């Protein structure tokens, strides 16, 4: 199938692949069981863009996502799978679409296909999330005060260093119960962590993690092995 529109040749930051590969990725998106429920048709009313927080800050449009898929514009969909989909915050404000489309859900599918096919851009986009995933599996909560490090938040300015240097002190100064620790936010039941792991394992999230970060996957399975056994599950 010839490409629908000539894409602008400028600013290609992702690895180009043969057209057949792009077509294959597109077909994977299209054949996802959720696809037909997420995309009906678009009359370009723009309400998804109006509701989209990311569209205010990035060159990003949920409408363009829906439109590119509806038009089966294989080249553009490939470009979006490498760029646009990572600008979405997955807040699903776009669900207010009067046609019943779900652009955010389409992005979920596109992201999963990107990850499952090992696109470099997916790995890069998700790099920063490895420590969050590790934090969840080790403590049951996705953020902890000690993650507040200057190199992780360069956009927050020099004040971050002041806070992170004396984190323990700041933490103790807070009025609410903070368990006097900087490595976790609150206490999480072992059972919750085990259940979360089982859900991730059964729904394919662990496979996604392996595709993005092999080392992290290995660490997580190690960490969980003992916990699973204690809870009466076999490691696999």
């Amino acid at each position, binding site marked *: 199938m010839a490409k629908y*529109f000539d894409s602008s040749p400028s600013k290609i930051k992702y690895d180009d692949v043969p057209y057949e590969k792009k077509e294959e990725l597109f077909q994977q998106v299209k054949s996802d069981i959720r696809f037909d429920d997420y995309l009906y048709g678009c009359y370009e009313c723009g309400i998804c863009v109006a509701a989209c927080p990311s569209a205010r800050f990035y060159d990003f449009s949920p*409408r363009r996502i829906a439109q590119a898929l509806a038009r089966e514009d294989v080249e553009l969909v490939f470009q979006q799978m490498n760029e646009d989909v990572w600008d979405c915050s997955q807040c699903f404000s776009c669900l207010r679409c009067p046609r019943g489309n779900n652009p955010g859900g389409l992005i979920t599918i596109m992201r999963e296909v990107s990850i499952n096919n090992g696109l470099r851009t997916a790995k890069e986009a998700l790099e920063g999330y490895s420590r969050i995933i590790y934090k969840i599996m080790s403590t049951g909560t996705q953020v902890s005060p000690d993650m507040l490090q200057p190199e992780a938040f360069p956009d927050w300015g020099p004040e971050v260093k002041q806070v992170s240097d004396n984190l323990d002190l700041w933490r103790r100064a807070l009025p609410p119960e903070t368990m006097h620790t900087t490595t976790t936010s609150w206490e999480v039941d072992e059972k919750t962590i085990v259940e979360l792991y089982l859900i991730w394992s059964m729904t394919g999230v662990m496979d996604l993690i392996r595709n993005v970060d092999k080392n992290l996957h290995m660490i997580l399975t190690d960490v969980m092995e003992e916990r699973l056994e204690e809870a009466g599950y076999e490691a696999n």
Partner: protein
Amino acid sequence: MANDAVLIIGGGPAGLEAARGVAGLGARAILVERRNNLGGAPINERYAALTHGFRDAEEVMNEIIAEVTSEALIDVRLGYSVAAVAGSAGDFTVTLAKEGNGHSDVVNVGAIIVATGFQHFDPGRETQMYGYYEFDDVITLQDSERMLKDRNWVRPSNGESPKRVCFIQCVGSRDRHIGNEYCSKVCCGIASKQAIEIRQQVPDCRVFIFYIDMRMYGYWENEIYWPAQEKYKVQYVKGIVTEILKKGDKLLVRGEDTTMGRPVEVTMDVVVLSNGMEPSAGTKEMARVLGLKQNKYGFIEVPHDALNPTATSVPGIFVSGAAAGPRDLDDSVGTGGAAAMKAVSLARKLARGDLQLANASR
């Protein structure tokens, strides 16, 4: 002598409905049609399916024609045109001329309904950029209807089945240069209907519609527009094509994809120009013969398109259908019935000598 007979000029959907309406009210109708057949544009232009419901145009029109021709109160005069009119509301003397042989008839009626309709805009007339007369594979909506009706939708240049087809909307409408500033009202729905039919008849053909606004009012939205997109995967591209060029044996279409914000250059096997409506030659001629005011576009002027859509500048002469402006089938048939009611009631009031009531019912 005053009477309540009504002369109806034009045997298309509006005229047929007007005739049915007049007869239904118990008055005599004389239905004059210049051609030798009834049915108007759907029959003469060989339309495929009609909105709503996608029923076969010929089948639907034949049902209505059968009703009209079997009605004792309706006198159908095929092959006749109106040559002259004298008199006034309640008492018109009309000369009907038989086409070709010079024979003429004089009839006396109380009121007249003009239902002479529209003609399809000729896209070769002004918009040469689309090359309608230059390229065999650039066609009009009515050309496309004929191929759909024959179930033989092919590239006219070589008879092959097309792989990529696009429609260009608003050809001859909404254009100050051409002088037709109005929207022709039906082309969005008809193009979308045809796009569905093409997808049904040629399933491996991709269909695109380049548009300015899609005007799919009322049930056309859910009956045509949404199914075209959702079920038949017709691609709507917001942006109008500026020109069509030849590229090999294909047509190169140049425009802007305003949604994606970039220029577009794509090849097509067939381009369908969604040409709009203009007053038919018959409409212009009847306006002249009957002395009816026309608007700047040549359609017959009515006092108010919404509140009084069937009256004309001459008392006792009414208009229905697309003779009064771009109208879809719904509006044409609707105004056909409305004109019948107005015409008969006026003629009867005048026959009773009730001028006050007659003036009020104009």
